[in-house]
């Protein structure tokens, strides 16, 4: 590949309109992902991380949502670029599941309770890998829209499926076998011991970890270039979480998928992400290589977030909590949204929106402690105390 980026999110803005006013859920978020890279998007409830993730597949419901600014560019294999936010629905549908796919937080809700696991996975293959399945079954691939294609896509009605099974028994059997083989191998890839048995089960018959494996199998069925994992392990126990994360990691190594990993848990970032972007109130406040950000966080919010996690050596009752609560984003004033909770906040923080500043190689921080007074056109007294040179860690 000539250029080394896969996804470029540029100045993304998402608004939600409600009778109470407009809230800017995502406000000028920009980041770039390289192929094979894992980027973690970390933040607390309501910081806009899930909306950002959904925007990449254009899954935010409109209305009440609205893409107010920016673009989400996906690089195609031939070097051309598709803007997902402005592309026609047909193009986006083809990208979903095929080039970019998503794992949702609650596998219990994201799987269809009325269909067997095998049938749900068959839908993915029918939609995106129709030609391959028909070829493996030794069936003609030339007639789009015919009964055969409809059946392979799992879209045919009950009657036509029955008639097809009755009059073209061999074709029906070959198709079923080819499809079942594909589904079984996709399930086996995620470490499910007996895929043929699982294929016949309904989601409610499976445990949480197993359901999440099915979701992963479904998401990776078509070898996507990018996997968006929206809190894939939040609903699971720690022992299962460790196994699922290992599985995602192994599959990534094997297939070279890039992963955008959405989580609220900073401690997961250390092991599983190359880079991390910390979000607060709709904006990315800090971004950089994950080991550096965790070792020496620069933004006051990242520092507070890390200090709030109980550690073995923290004296009991002396956790450093971030004072106050997340501000309401309905018709929020143009300022640093963290200013109301920030120990360093000065006058300048309340009148201007901080822009990402490069503080060292690959690290961006959106904080006025890294800006100079001239840039904002304010006097030096109104600026917060400048941060020390990078490298000085927390505590």
């Amino acid at each position, binding site marked *: 590949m000539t250029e080394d980026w896969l996804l470029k999110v540029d100045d993304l803005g998402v608004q939600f309109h409600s009778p109470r006013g407009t809230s800017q859920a995502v406000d000028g978020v920009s980041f770039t992902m390289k192929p094979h890279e894992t980027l973690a998007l970390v933040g*607390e*409830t309501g910081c806009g991380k899930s909306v950002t993730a959904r925007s990449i597949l254009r899954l935010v419901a409109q209305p009440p949502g609205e893409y107010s600014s920016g673009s989400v560019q996906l690089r195609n294999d031939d070097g051309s670029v598709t803007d997902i936010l402005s592309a026609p629905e047909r193009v986006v549908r083809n990208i979903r599941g095929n080039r970019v796919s998503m794992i949702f937080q609650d596998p219990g809700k994201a799987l269809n309770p009325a269909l067997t696991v095998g049938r749900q996975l068959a839908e993915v293959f029918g939609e995106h890998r129709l030609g391959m399945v028909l070829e493996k079954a030794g069936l003609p691939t030339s007639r789009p829209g015919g009964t055969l294609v409809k059946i392979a896509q799992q879209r045919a009605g009950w009657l036509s499926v029955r008639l097809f099974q009755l009059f073209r028994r061999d074709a029906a059997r070959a198709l079923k076998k080819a499809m079942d083989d594909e589904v079984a191998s996709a399930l086996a890839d995620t470490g499910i*011991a*007996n895929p*043929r*048995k699982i294929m016949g089960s309904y989601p409610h018959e499976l*445990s949480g*970890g*197993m359901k999440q494996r099915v979701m992963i199998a479904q998401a990776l069925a078509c070898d996507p270039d990018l996997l968006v994992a929206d809190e894939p392990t939040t609903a699971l*126990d*720690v*022992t*299962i*979480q*460790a*196994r699922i994360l290992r599985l995602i990691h192994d599959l990534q190594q094997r297939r070279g998928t890039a992963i955008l990993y959405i989580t*609220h*848990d*900073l*401690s*997961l970032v*250390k*092991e599983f992400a190359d880079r991390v972007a910390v979000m607060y109130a709709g904006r990315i406040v800090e971004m950089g290589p994950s080991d550096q950000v*965790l070792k020496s966080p620069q933004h006051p919010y990242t520092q*507070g*977030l*890390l*200090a*709030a*996690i*109980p*550690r*073995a050596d*923290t004296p*009991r*009752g*002396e*956790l*450093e*909590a*971030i004072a106050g*609560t997340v501000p309401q984003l309905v018709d929020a004033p143009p300022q640093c949204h963290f200013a109301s909770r920030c120990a360093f906040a000065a006058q300048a923080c309340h009148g201007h929106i901080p822009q990402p500043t490069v503080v060292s190689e690959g690290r961006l921080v959106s904080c006025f402690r890294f800006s100079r007074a001239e840039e904002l056109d304010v006097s030096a007294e109104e600026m917060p105390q400048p941060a020390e040179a990078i490298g000085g860690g927390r505590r």
Partner: protein
Amino acid sequence: MTSTSQADASVAVDSVVTLHDVQVHYPVKEGLLQRVSGHVRAVDGVDLTIPRGQTLGLVGESGCGKTTLGRVVAGLVAPTGGELWFGLTADQHEHVNRIRAIAPGERSAEDQALWRQLEREHRLGSMTKERHREYRRNCQVVFQDSFASLNPRQLVRDIVGRPLRVHREASGSEVDARVVELLERVGLGAQHLLRYPHQFSGGQRQRISIARALALNPEFVILDEPTSALDVSVQAQILNLLVELQQDLGLTYLFITHDLGVVQHMADDIAVMYLGQIAEYGPTDQVFFDPLHPYSRILRDSNPSLEDEEVGERWELSGTVPNPINPPRGCRLHPRCPVATDLCGWSVTDALEHVETAAPAVFEHIDAVNRSTDFLAEVAMSDDASAALMAREINSSPAGVALTQPAISNGKVVSLTLRQVDDAELLPIRELRSSACLRTQQQGVLPSS
């Protein structure tokens, strides 16, 4: 010594609550006549002492029975077996243990009278009405989901003031004054008195729950995952508040959680639960740094941590949670344990379950299984060839190590003889520490892989 290790280990302690062999079995009903076909053993023989003025952490994964145990202690679920004592002093504790060891028929008249008196005053279920009321006031709960546990149609003043009215602690305008006092105690104020729960954030709602729990000056608070629905920055606020309250009011906490980082920070002692039983009990730091049960070690290794510690090899749990209706024999962890050996209680069911997943084609050829015991059975297959395959599968299964002689097919029948193992119990390993791991009990240290 009796078999109740943990009760023994802390005999000389004033306890808030003492559990002896507590069981909660839920019947599973089937068919038209709703015949009881089995029991879900949610809590299955738990001995636990909660010492006064300390924090006991109860950790485990979902479905291990930790919340049910918390509800038993709170008096919200009646145990189907075992004893639950409240507010025993160290002396009374010794009396209870001594008299219990004597068979009811052989007790002296004096002992009988003492036992009856102790039961009337301290045993949940046999208590007098006044004592039970006192228990209820002394033992309060903070639930996980503050959305569900606060009545959405009541004002904060009514929610927090209700315990005061129910127990006739205050009436009229006195209630409001007390409620404001309580709200200030938890970091809220008089301005919040006339609001509904939905007007608060998650952290604030949890503060209201805590204020309600503190309304009657309890000595014991059960915290059932109080922070798992909160973000870390808010969680830190709530944990700090809980510690502050404990120091000021001398509270005892039972802290139920699945988050090891939180429990490590909060608890003096922890009890690790697995499948309805306590797998390990001991001081928090010791359990973390030197676990004496494979399950504790797996939990610790699976817990993502920000610290740069080298834990060496990471242990992992394989498979899925077994059926609590028919839990594994011996040690309950053994089918999933990385260091299981023939000692650990492999049964016929384990062997057959392995065949079912590893070789479903062979499993389908089973005609009948005649079990003499859980460890001795004859498996009748539909033909000779599949019987030979069955024998091979069983010999190569994890349960194969516990076979006293290799399984051989004799015609259509495969006979299995596995090593008979008693069910694991929580036994003291060393000072303050107990573990239910059969191998640890034998060696005195956690077996290495």
